[in-house]
């Protein structure tokens, strides 16, 4: 059994309430942190090696140390609970079942950063989770963990939940800040970075739900202890959202460094591919990261096992690797059509582009259109290279990374599944009725034994 730091008490009845959470050792991290100096708290987070769980994997402690601290200017912590990356549903899960883990982490993190007002920006569709968080905040406040002079420490903190309006782009941190200011979610040009000029032009840190919740075990056990878990620069545990054609889809907490094979096939985690089918492909880190055929999902190009870590998932660069991203692990069985899924993802990015930069606004539209005609039997052979060309023209040429996120899935699908795209052109009628199948994308994969 891997160690659980965030989901340890997930099955305890009533763990969503303050009392039960407290009985299980909750809010000890607040008590401990308030006896430390803010800088000492930052130091522990630095030592932990925690990397941002929202997608980019930037070291959290380092991000915190960049925060500007001019005299007399407010500083803000904003939690990114926009969670809209297809394949990712861990934050919703955590907020639904253990809301106090986030509230406790918000108090610890706000104290470390010297924020006196903090916001949790939750995507508007998560209205039930917004209610859950508001209740949790009221409970924590009642118990003296929020508001004025928390536990007699002299530290004041107000915590508010802000709903979004339904827009993937508001997960991008500067778009999120625009949205929190009551505007359209158009990403800002950086620099200045939020650490210098963020919410209302004040120094601001934006962190993912899971990153903030992870500060609780880090403060409780110490950064060094946290850093002992995991592998190399991928320290600690990570919540993985597993979806697609799996026996047991769901949210799993893993120790970073677990093998992809064990994660996919062992009964402790996903339990293998549903309906006795075989694995065709995976998207390891949410829809934005490159798709990999089954063989490269499980093994590196040199034949060694691929691990669930930032380094191992990206091993081989874009030629043979992918990325950890937000930890949204999507499994495709042998009956799934790569062209159709790529079209579906392109439609998503086209729909979600904020429209500020022409390469993204126009390019995502073109990719959707061309993929649609390939999927529906009107494609030409030249469309395949056209897609590669369009994706290259978007990549790196936009204000925010949504452009890249739209380009990578298309480029990687063609890189690894080109014969399937060509088959759609050669056999348009057949492609509508059936699918290309497993081809040479998978090796015979056996079910692995549980290792614990």
């Amino acid at each position: 059994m891997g160690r659980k730091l965030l989901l340890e008490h997930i099955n305890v009845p009533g763990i969503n309430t303050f009392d039960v959470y407290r009985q299980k050792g909750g809010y000890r991290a607040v008590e401990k942190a308030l006896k430390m100096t803010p800088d000492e708290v930052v130091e522990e987070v630095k030592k932990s090696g925690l990397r941002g769980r929202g997608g980019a994997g930037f070291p959290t402690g380092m991000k915190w140390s960049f925060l500007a601290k001019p005299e007399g200017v407010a500083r803000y912590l904003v939690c990114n609970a926009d969670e809209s990356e297809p394949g990712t549903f861990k934050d919703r899960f955590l907020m639904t079942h253990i809301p106090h883990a986030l509230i406790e982490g918000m108090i610890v993190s706000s104290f470390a950063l010297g924020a006196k007002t903090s916001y949790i920006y939750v995507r508007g569709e998560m209205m039930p989770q917004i209610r859950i968080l508001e209740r949790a905040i009221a409970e924590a406040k009642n118990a003296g963990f929020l508001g004025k002079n928390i536990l007699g420490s002299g530290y004041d903190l107000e915590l508010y939940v802000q709903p979004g309006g339904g827009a993937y782009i508001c997960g991008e941190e500067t778009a999120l800040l625009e949205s929190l200011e009551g505007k359209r979610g158009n990403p800002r040009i950086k620099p200045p970075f939020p650490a210098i000029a963020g919410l209302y032009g004040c120094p601001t840190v934006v962190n993912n739900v899971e990153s903030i919740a992870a500060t609780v075990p880090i403060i409780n056990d110490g950064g060094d202890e946290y850093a002992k878990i995991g592998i190399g620069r991928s320290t600690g545990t990570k919540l993985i959202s597993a979806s697609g054609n799996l026996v047991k889809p769901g949210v799993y907490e893993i120790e970073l460094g677990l093998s992809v094979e064990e994660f996919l096939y062992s009964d402790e985690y996903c339990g293998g591919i549903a309906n006795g089918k075989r694995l065709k492909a995976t998207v390891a880190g949410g829809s934005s990261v490159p798709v990999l055929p089954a063989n490269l999902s499980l093994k590196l190009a040199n034949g060694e096992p691929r691990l669930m870590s930032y380094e191992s998932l990206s091993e081989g660069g874009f030629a043979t690797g992918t990325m950890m991203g937000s930890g949204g692990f999507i499994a495709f069985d042998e009956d799934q059509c790569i062209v159709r899924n790529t079209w579906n993802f392109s439609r998503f990015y086209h729909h979600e582009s904020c429209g500020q930069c022409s390469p993204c606004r126009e390019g995502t539209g073109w990719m959707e259109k061309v993929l649609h005609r390939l999927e529906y039997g009107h494609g030409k052979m030249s469309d395949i290279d056209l897609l590669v060309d369009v994706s290259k023209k978007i990549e790196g040429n936009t204000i925010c990374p949504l452009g890249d996120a739209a380009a990578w899935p298309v480029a990687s699908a063609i890189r690894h599944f080109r014969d399937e795209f060509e088959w759609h052109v050669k056999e348009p009628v057949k492609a509508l009725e059936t699918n290309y199948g497993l081809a040479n994308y998978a090796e015979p994969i056996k079910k692995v034994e549980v290792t614990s």
Partner: protein
Amino acid sequence: MLKVEQQQPVEFSPALIQKFDEITGRYPEGKQKSALLPILHEVQAEFGWLSVPAMDKVALYLDIQDIEVYEVASFYSMYFLKPQGKYVLEVCRTGPCCLVGAEKLMTHIESSLGVKENEVTPDGLFSWRGVECLAACGFGPVLQIGPEYTFYENLNAEKVDELIADLRKK
């Protein structure tokens, strides 16, 4: 396009205004525009959609320009700028849910309700639409129904028909 007779003047009840006041209190002095998104959710929950007179009233309340409200209301996918069915079934149409049958489910909803995407049933009770990933991909197919955004997971044709029947009886 919006019909003129739908653009009736609206009144905000004292209870609603009180909610606005509470929301506006969450932000620093002078930053009340931050309340715009949450307030629009409240207005939509009350009236079912955002009419121009309602948006203008919000602008007046927040002391911002009308256009600042329109541009926000039209940017975000949750705000309705036209009247909808009493229950809007919003089905996730994104990749992971499609791997487990979301497309078939949408076809089924279309035939069960007898209306196309974004159309309202003649009794005014239902409309439906595909929406993008709802962060529940491991429990797909999923749909949500506002204004409380109640969630229904692991759906199939029978479960959706039951849901529709239950809502009809309400």
